[in-house]
């Protein structure tokens, strides 16, 4: 299983490095969205709840761009068939794809979070950074698990570009709730505080449950 995942992961990252189909687009989308928010809200700096909301909405929509592309090459160019012909555990594909998506999102955040701090964020990010990284990491795992499941569900339907986001957004609402509520005290102007433990707990629990669900049902998506 581990060798299969490693091989699949290597293939995914190689394809992405050669085609650069997803990650640059996601990052550019995030930066552009910050510019759009600047004009839409007519504010040059944001903090607290508003900052957390903008950050999470942007990251989420950018991540959904990646989710939409995640399985497209496999569906269109026979990747699924090739994988199904190999005598390997099918869950390996789920794990490899989820790690791929996680890597995409981490790279996206490496671009988007500094860009956000530079373009829109009022208070300096400095001392809140470790906490913010923790919250982001917890949320990313959940987004990767749900995103992979939804991508596999939507990719072989006729309206996949439409169905992917429609399925993903309601499923991701609890992550937005947990992420935004945990982030907003970090980005507060006056007295930045630590995120409340219950949000971290919610995020962790959500990651766990949806990781298990994705693991349990993923095989059924790969039968033909």
């Amino acid at each position: 299983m581990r060798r299969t995942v490693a091989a699949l992961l290597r293939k995914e990252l190689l394809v992405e490095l050669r085609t650069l189909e997803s990650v640059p687009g996601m990052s550019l989308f995030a930066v552009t969205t910050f510019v759009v928010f600047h004009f839409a809200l007519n504010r040059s700096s944001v903090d607290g709840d508003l900052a957390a909301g903008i950050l999470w909405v942007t990251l989420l929509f950018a991540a959904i761009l990646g989710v939409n592309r995640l399985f497209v090459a496999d569906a269109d160019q026979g990747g699924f068939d090739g994988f199904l012909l190999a005598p390997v555990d099918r869950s390996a594909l789920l794990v490899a794809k989820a790690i791929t998506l996680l890597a995409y999102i981490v790279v996206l955040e490496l671009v988007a979070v500094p860009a956000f701090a530079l373009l829109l964020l009022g208070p300096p990010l400095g001392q809140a950074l470790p906490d913010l990284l923790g919250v982001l990491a917890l949320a990313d795992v959940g987004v990767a698990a749900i995103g992979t499941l939804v991508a596999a569900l939507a990719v072989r339907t006729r309206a996949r570009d439409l169905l992917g986001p429609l399925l993903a957004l309601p499923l991701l609402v609890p992550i937005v709730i947990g992420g935004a509520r945990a982030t907003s005290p970090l980005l507060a102007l006056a007295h930045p505080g630590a995120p409340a433990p219950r949000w971290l707990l919610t995020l962790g629990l959500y990651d766990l449950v949806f990781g298990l669900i994705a693991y349990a049902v993923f095989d059924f998506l790969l039968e033909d």
Partner: protein
Amino acid sequence: MESSSRQPAGFSDSKPRAPGRVVRYGGGLRALSLATLAVMTAGLALVFFYAPLEAEQGFLQKIFYVHVPLAIVSLCGFVLGGLFAIQHLRTRDQRWDMRSYVAIHMSLIFGVGTLITGSIWAKGSWGHWWVWNEPTLVSFLIVFLLYATYQPLRFAIEDPERQARYASVFAITAGAFVPMNFIAVRLSTAYLHPRVLGGTSNLPAPMALTFVVCLVAMALLYTTMFKYELTAKHTRAQLRALRRRLAGEDAPAGLSRARTAAPTLQPPATIGAGAAGRPG
């Protein structure tokens, strides 16, 4: 009863009918309908003539006896759809997929009712059609939006077998999402309003009794509608099979049918064979 002679074919077991399959689905439907009608009437009578007026909200509070049962039954129906879907993936029996589809379809209809009655209640008691600090209503909206993609998902997959499989995966995921989502949204909302929905223990006895009767009535209504749709679907599948047999073996099987989000049953082969074996 007088109306028994006007029953649609297949709903009665008094006359022997060719394949026994249809009778099984329609069985007990009349008794169930009557029971629903009786309990529903009793529930509404209790609501209007027995349950006391609530001190703060007055007459408006009576929508509670419709809204909350609708919501509970609808959510249970969503979870039930997920359980049927598990059964479908385990047994690969298409009838489980059909049950899952019908459960979710009915729950969506009950869900529309929940949102409408909830809105009316919110407008009446708080002055706005929608309130964001009522966690139960907000979670319900999120769940409803998720399930609203169930039919588009089915509709977008043409191969019936894969449609059923993918729909089951969706139903299981979404069924697990229902409780998770309620936890998350409830955590996120401060308890600003005194809650009427927190169980029957804090209700005075007449109200609790009325509520329980209404809940039973709503559950019966759900079951009846569920069985009606299931029966209709199976009858239609059988009718289609018989028509095809009438048209001859070489009639195109799938071409005449309009594309649909509903699961496709394939009793045609079995029923066709069964009827063929029987002397007419």
